[in-house]
């Protein structure tokens, strides 16, 4: 039995660095066992995601590098694929029909006991170590020093498409009108910079599947979920090492 192997004493020490790897692994298994979720290898950790999702545990958890540190929490089980989010996104940000800044992916499991289909909204993960920003030759795409949002300065884009090849999340497309690569900026240009508090998609979602907020604000829902030991929170493609700021959870 997996449950028997767990050393409860060790579990109480909450700092991820203190827990020996073996016990940590047991703890992970427990998390999976309890929640019953095995999301195709995409689960990063059954504990608070923060330690793993950033470069350095202490550096990031003690003090977030951006203020506000914008991030999004996706309640994967709440998404019903109504596509209101993608529609308002396109309208708000002038996204042409051949492109998209966010979309909803569908995963099916015919053997699943209850619900056999789930929807996974995807968008730019506003990574902390963004491969696109590292690769861009002209700093046309850059990480905002104040908000942590990965921004575009279209006039500098030479159209080499390195960022598109680099992105582990397929979050970028080439916009023929601006002759520059376009991507989600958490509605910074269209909304946040004009005083709005939410992204268009988060505001429009009828199921509250997308929660937008400030990870550096301990009162925000994003913070409270991501730092909640009881919650299973994960990011997509953690192995790509980009340290994303879009988190996923269920239940």
């Amino acid at each position, binding site marked *: 039995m997996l449950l028997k192997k767990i050393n409860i004493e060790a579990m109480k020490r909450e700092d991820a660095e203190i827990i020996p790897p073996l016990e940590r692994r047991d703890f992970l298994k427990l998390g999976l066992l309890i929640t019953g979720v095995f999301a*195709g*290898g*995409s689960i990063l950790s059954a504990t608070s995601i923060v330690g793993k999702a950033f470069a350095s545990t202490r550096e990031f958890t003690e003090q977030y590098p951006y203020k506000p540190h914008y991030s999004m929490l996706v309640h994967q089980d709440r998404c019903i694929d109504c596509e209101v989010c993608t529609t308002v996104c396109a309208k708000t940000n002038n996204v042409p029909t*051949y*492109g998209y800044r966010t979309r909803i*992916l*569908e*995963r*099916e499991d015919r053997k699943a006991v209850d619900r056999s289909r789930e929807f*996974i909204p*995807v968008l730019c993960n506003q990574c902390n170590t963004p*491969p696109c920003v*590292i*690769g*861009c*030759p*002209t*700093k*046309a795409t850059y990480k905002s020093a104040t908000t942590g949002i990965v921004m575009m300065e279209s*006039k*500098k*884009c*030479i*159209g*080499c*498409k*390195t960022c*598109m*090849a*680099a*992105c*582990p*999340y*397929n979050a*970028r*497309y*080439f916009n*023929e009108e601006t*002759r*520059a690569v376009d991507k989600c900026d958490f509605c910074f240009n269209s909304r946040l910079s004009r005083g709005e508090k939410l992204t268009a998609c988060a505001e429009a979602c009828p199921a509250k599947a997308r929660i937008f907020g400030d990870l550096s604000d301990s009162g925000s829902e994003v913070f409270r979920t991501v730092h909640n030991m009881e919650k299973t929170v994960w990011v*997509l*493609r953690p*192995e*790509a*090492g*980009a340290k994303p700021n879009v988190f996923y959870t269920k239940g």
Partner: protein
Amino acid sequence: MAEDVTKTAEAAVLTGWRAGAAGVLQSLQGTKGYYAALMISGVLLLAAVAAGIHAQYIGTMNAYGASREVPWGILISTYVFFVVTSTGLCLVSSIGHVFGVKEFMPIAKRAIFLSIMTIMAGFFVIAFEIENPLRMALYNVISPNLTSNIWWMGTLYGAYMFFMAVEFTFLVINKPKIATIIGFMGVVAGIAAHSNLGAVFGMLHGREFWYGPYMPIYFIASAMMSGAATIIFFTWLAYKVNGQKMDGLMKKALQVTTKVGILLISVILFFTAWKFITGFVGGEAKTAALEMLLSGSYAFNFWGLEVAAGMVIPLALFIASRGQNLKMIVTASALMIFGIFFMRYDLVVVGQLVPVYYELGVNEYSELLSYTPSAHEILIVLGGMGFVGLTFLLGEKVFGGHKSEIH
């Protein structure tokens, strides 16, 4: 007074130009085959320019096969093909005229000339791939990103091309000592630029097929393999074009270049084998890409073109030739150039065909992606080859068969 001086100078320049132009025209005497080849190369080049401009006009989204999921297509792989060849020509020729191994001397001048022309062909092709070349010219300079391998590669290749051009000039005006120094700088810039090109792929940590230190190393070894094949083939072709017979020294030079070819094919075979062996203990995405090459839709490209035509058959021919049988050597190097073109293509394309969300198990990305080059893209690629053909043919005549004295 000043006016007189200007007039005299003008006259002198004009006379010089006329004499030069007459000399060039004089030197351009050739067979019908030569003119036909010139014509075909020129037509290919013009067709490529037309296709490239048309593509910009109707939008590359419509004109090219590349897409959001597979942003880099045959134009990038052909650019890689040309610059790999250029670096290889520079490296192989440097054995002789930079590092002083006498046997390699006779191939040097032509190799340097071709290295300049192949890198220009690379720039020609990528100019139609880059959406905003003008923005590039401006912001590469005023907004450089020093963490970007693309930036380093572009900048270093610029320096490399400059050094190679200066080196060639000094060789032509017969100043070999200065040429050697500049040549050394060219080699350094070439290696730096070329390993950065490898790193453009190797540093993309979201792409498992490319990610890692393998790419920069592989690119350098692979360049020398390309360089050896290209100089052998074009030297042979040049003697056909010029209707001359090779002397003993040139034969000897090709013989030692064949040895370089044997060595580098072996190195690349070794690299390729280990890439696959280590790759299969990697993640699902990496395995999927490797399987595409081994047994999937790219199996013919891999086994038939890359492995058989690009490496194994040439290796066998090189060895069987014992460095003497020129037919075998030339066939081998022609096969190599052909195979290596697809080696670059597979490297660039297959690296993107596994969707980034493949392992997430979603319906949208449960299948591998596909890419087919469009007519526009193919025309531009052929134009790049036309450029090399045209400049090679003209170069042979203008520079009198790149004859060099041994010092």
